[in-house]
Each structure stands twice: as structure tokens, then as C-alpha cells.
């Protein structure tokens, strides 16, 4: 195990300093209070500002704690904002895959469908924005669980409901599946929520790589999967491209 990361310790010290009093502090005050070079303090302050933990007053240039710190416990990305930022990419994914696309975020132990693009074949379909799906039985939910957007333990404690004979109802099976999702970078559900239906999903990441939601494609199992019952590689490629494009748009650097 490596030792503590110096810049994170310093960032924590800056936050404590700013939290210490009601007054805004200038760069010089922050640097001298903590015995840091001005350049070092400035670099850390700018990074904290970038993630909204620190705000700089436009007129005086002085710093204070950012509003995002007050909402650390709640989702920092508005779901309607997420829909708005994803809409063009989700449309493109539906157009290229020929299947329905959904975006999900965690809500109270379920997956909340925040966006839905119809399968582009002009058949009668119903918009299911606002619907709640079970986390363990759909690909969107598995991705959210695998990347820590929602804790697994309370779900397992409450018992995993069986929707079909393929639903993962044993916690060992779910854990193993989540490890695989983390390794692959995407998740699948094959007849686990409804017989004949399948889906694949990939994580949407925000600043720093934090997973804020998932985007998925779903449809009849024979179209989503190949003859061996594995998701079609071409579909996965399209899906991951869309997820990466949205993530880049949301400020995730590496994805």
C-alpha cells in the first residue's frame, strides 16, 4: 500500500481552512496559512474549483467553499440535465443499432429510466421515462451496481427477486457478474427480467470518472445476442462509443 498522496492531503487542508471561517480568503492567505508555494496552492485551488468544491468571487478573486460540497450526499448531476446532454448520442445509437435505447440513474434501490428512444421501426411503443427497473435484473442496473453508483449490500439483504429462471437471485452469482461487468466495461442481461428479452449497457461517467448513469440498448434476445447467446460484438462497439461520447461531454477526461 502506498503512502498518503501529498496533493490530496493539501487539498483537504485547503478545504478545512476555507471551512474554518465565514470570510473568503485570497490566494496569498491560503498559501501562507498552509506554508505552501503560491503556485502549488493555486494549482490545487483551480482543481477544486473545477470540481465545484471551491468557488472564486469574480470581483475580488477570493475563494470560498463551493455549493457542490453541500450536496455531496446527493446526486450531483441533475437527471434532466443528463437527458438533455445525452439526447443526440442516444438518438444516434438507436439509429445505428436499430434498437430501443434507455438511460438509467439510481433511485432508492432501483433504476430510474430518465430517457427512452423508441426502436426506430415506427411500431407502436410507449414512452417509459419515469419507470423503475430492478437493479439486479437489468443491464442498466448491473452497470450502476458494478461501478459503485448504488450499493449492493442493501439489495442483497432485502433479497433478490426472481423474474425469470435466468434472474441472478444468489448473491454469489450477482457478485461474480458484477466483477465481470467491471472487467469488460459493459454489462448484459439475457432473459433475466423477461423471457425473450435481452439488453446491454455501459457506464456514463462524469468528472473524475465517477459513474453518474448508464446507457443501454435492449430488444428481443435473437437480435441483441448471437446464436451462442452472447451479445453481438458490433452492438457493444456502438454502445460503448455512445457512452464514451456522452461521458466526454460531461467532462470525464479519460473515457
Amino acid at each position, binding site marked *: 500500500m502506498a503512502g498518503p498522496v501529498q496533493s490530496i492531503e493539501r487539498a483537504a487542508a485547503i478545504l478545512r481552512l476555507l471551512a474554518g471561517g465565514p470570510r473568503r480568503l485570497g490566494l496569498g492567505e491560503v498559501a501562507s496559512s498552509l506554508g505552501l508555494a503560491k503556485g502549488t496552492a493555486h494549482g490545487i485551488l483551480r482543481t477544486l474549483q473545477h470540481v465545484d468544491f471551491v468557488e472564486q468571487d469574480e470581483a475580488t478573486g477570493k475563494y470560498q467553499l463551493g455549493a457542490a460540497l453541500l450536496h455531496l450526499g446527493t446526486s450531483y448531476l441533475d437527471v434532466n440535465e443528463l437527458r*438533455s446532454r445525452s439526447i443526440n448520442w442516444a438518438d444516434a445509437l438507436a439509429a445505428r443499432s436499430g434498437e430501443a435505447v434507455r438511460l438509467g440513474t439510481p433511485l432508492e434501490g432501483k433504476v430510474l429510466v430518465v430517457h427512452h428512444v423508441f426502436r426506430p421501426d*415506427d411500431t407502436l411503443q410507449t414512452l417509459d421515462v419515469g419507470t423503475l427497473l430492478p437493479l439486479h435484473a437489468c443491464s442498466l442496473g448491473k452497470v450502476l451496481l458494478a461501478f459503485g453508483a448504488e450499493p449492493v449490500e442493501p439489495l442483497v439483504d432485502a433479497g433478490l427477486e426472481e423474474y425469470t429462471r435466468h434472474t441472478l437471485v444468489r448473491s454469489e452469482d450477482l457478485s461474480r457478474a458484477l466483477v465481470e461487468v467491471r472487467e469488460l466495461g459493459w454489462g448484459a442481461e439475457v432473459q433475466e427480467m423477461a423471457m425473450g428479452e435481452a439488453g446491454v449497457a455501459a457506464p456514463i461517467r462524469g468528472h473524475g470518472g465517477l459513474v453518474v448513469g448508464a446507457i443501454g440498448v435492449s430488444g428481443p434476445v435473437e437480435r441483441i445476442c448471437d446464436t451462442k447467446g452472447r451479445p453481438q460484438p458490433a452492438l457493444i462497439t456502438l454502445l460503448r462509443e455512445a457512452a464514451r461520447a456522452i461521458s466526454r461531454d460531461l467532462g470525464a477526461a479519460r473515457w
Partner: protein
Amino acid sequence: MVERYVMSIDQGTTSTRCILFDHRGRLVTVAQREHRQFFPQPGWVEHDASEIWRNLERIVPEALSGVGIDVGQITAIGIANQRETTVLWDRRTGAPVCRAIVWQDVRTAQLVEDLGRSPGDAFFLDRCCLPPSTYFSAPRLRWLFDHVDGLEQRARDGEVLFGTVESWVIWNLTGGADGGLHITDATNASRTMLMNIRTLTWDPELLEFFGVPSAMLPEIRPSIETYGQARSVLPGVPITAALGDQQAALFGQTCFSPGEAKCTYGTGSFLVMNTGTDLVRSRHGLLTTVAYKIADQPTVYALEGPIAVTGSLVQWFRDRLGLISSAPEIETLALTVEDNGGCYIVPAFSGLFAPHWRSDARGVIVGLTSYITKGHLARAVLEATGWQTREVVDAMNADSALAMKELKVDGGMTSDNLLMQFLADVLDLPVVRPLVAETVSLGAAYAAGLAAGFWPDLEVLRRNWHRAAQWMPDMDPERREWEYECWKRAVERSLGWIRPSGPA
């Protein structure tokens, strides 16, 4: 086989965009650049036409290099543009003689008011089907002649050329001062107040009335036919279509049959209904406009209801009131309450457009009580867009024998789920969003590709259209009527606020 593409250039109010579409109408690449907005006085809005052209010169190569596509793979260029904006430039140097005056600019308010009294609205409605308004180009030309020394004479001498933005772009693309084509299309010309809506030619009486010399005017051409080849930026590629942006969106939504309508929700919103080859004169406050003209085929007309303030009300809520930090959050805030709590906002920031056309109206918030929270205000903001659309749809249904069966929507606000459901509820119609949201660019591409034979006919384009989402009406009819009555009473309270002159 080498893949081929159609390029659309969308010269809009805030930015210029260049998009490539493939044969299935799918978006391949986008390049975009914003231009500056000049506000030299309250109510004035200007653009630098040179800057717009320079931006276009930059983004076209950007769009191509992003995906490694060669100029030779582009079959045709289609242009969609902000309408009514007035550009004047020197025929010999190619330089604009002044800043372009943008469609939102209200400097001609006094002139327009005088026109309404004499010769009166009928003189204009008979010829161009437009009521006098600061919205259109001809009053701006008159204003420039009256305020820029020597300009009118230079125009008479043929030294100065006039055009809306597509004319400026095409003239520059085809060689500029060195033999550039000086043309406009019938949709854009139909917004100048200078074109006879029936003959699609410059109307001699309107020209004489505004004192506009015909020497400065572009030739009016069909919206869809080969105009010529580009000589700069995309040398050798034919330019085969030009449409005003709202007409392009109608085309992109494949509203080719009479009675089909779309509404584009942006800063303002524009509901346009195809009325076929019939020229329907509105008796309910709508504009009659050219939808498109394909080569020598009969002209297709449309009824249009422009709404000045919809998305910009959300922007105001964000930037001026600071109650939300991003536009989509309006939905989150609105969902914190069950209903509007009895509160209504009429956003008549610079008067009301269709169907009222009242420049003396100003915005009101009514029904305020101590019960009202910011959540109720957020509801009222979104509902204002719904009710304004309802007023225009009612006018459409009253003017046209073709009752609307569904409303196709596009534009940024269609990502607001609550608003789209509310629209379906108050219109009592299904509201449908297509898979390609960039309908303005898509329409320009469709038009260009059609003229170039890239697509064989309108039916093929129609088959490219797919439903991405649909909202069904789900509101108690009694409640709908009650709410609509409340809205109408709120509108009444916004009217007549502005008096002819303020204190000295």
C-alpha cells in the same frame, strides 16, 4: 465504392454549423462556430456578415478533416439560414457596407407603427401576406436608406447589393466580387415584404413603396434546383438548395403533405403547417409563407405561427432570476410541485407575435399569492410554451380546412419531458419527436440531395423519418378548458401595457 455525402450549411442566429449526412439521412459529422452578437442600443441586434463568412470558411474543412472525407465525396451543398436578417454589401469589394440587421432587431418599431396606420395592413397583406412588423426585412432597408448617408443613391447606381443571409453565403461561395451568383430562394424572399406571394417575383408596388431599387435585389429562384458550382471552400461542388431555417425544418420533418405540421422549440418557437399548393390567407393572425418550391413544380405554401419567447423564457429564469443553474433543471424544479398553483407567466418581453401581433404587450406574472414557490413559477414558465403553442394551433385549425392530427416537434426544448407531455395534454394531440433532432440541417441536406439525384423522391425521404418518442394526451378535458381560460385571461392582462410615449 466510395461513400458519398450531402453537406448542409445552417447559418443560424447564434452560430454557423456544417453537417454531413450519409445516404440514410444519418448525421456523420458536425462542425460549428458561434459569431458575435452586437447590441449597440436597446432593441438593436446586429451581426458582422464578414465574420459569418470567415467562420464558414473555417468550419467546412474542419467538418471534412474530422472524418477524413474528401471534397470529391460531397454530392451537393444545401443551405438553411436565419431568416429576415438584412445584409448589404459592396458589389465591387465584396465588403459589407454596414452590420447585418438581425430579425430580432426592433429599431423599425416607429416606422412599422406608421405603416399600420397608412397605408394600413391590407396593402401589405394583399401582396405579400405579411402584416407590417419589425420582424421583416423591407422596413430595415428603408431605415438604412434613411439613416446611412448616400446609401440609397449607391443602391440605385447598382453599387450596393441586398440579400438575406443565404444570398450572402451563395454569392461568396460562387466567387464573390469575381462573378458570384446574386440569388435568393422563394422561402427567404417570402419574408422580406418585397415579394409577391402569388407570383414569386419582386412586387413593383412594394418596391416603390419602400423605395427599394431593383438593381440591388437578388434573383428569386426555386428553393430546390442546381444554382451553380461553388468556387471557394468546396470548389466544384454544386449548390442545389436554399431554404429559410424554419422551412428547412419542415422539410427535414418530411411534412410534405397538406395538413402536416411541425414546431421547432428553440429561443423562440415556430409552428409551420404545409397547406399544399393552396395559398391560404390567414384570418387568425398567422403568416402565409412559401414552404418550398422544387424546380419548376408548383409552389408549396405554408401557414406559420411564430412565437417570439419560449426557450428564452427559460434562459431568463436561469440567467436573470438565477433560480436554476442550467436550462434542463427547470423540469426538476417544476416537478417539485403538483401544478402551477394558479400562477401564469405571459412572456411578452417585446410584445406578442402570433396570433396576437401586439407590440404594446409586455410580460406579466399573474395569480401570485403567498402560496407560490419557485417550483410553481418553473411550472408557469414551461406552461407558457404549451399555451402559446395551443393558441397558434387553434389559429391554424381555424384558418385551414385541414385539422391537425399530430404535432411533430424538434429543437432543444424537446428534451424536456414534462413540457412535451404538457404540450400533448393542452393540444389534445399526440406529440412526436423524430430520431434526427437536427431537422434544420437535415432539411437543407434533403433538399440539396433531392435536386442532385442523391435521393430519388420525397417518398424515400419520408421513409428515413423515424419516431424517437411520442407523448399522448392525458388531461381531463374540463381541467384543460379551465386552464386555457385562465391563460387567455392572463394574456388579456399583458396587452396595452406600453403607451405611445413615456415621460419627457
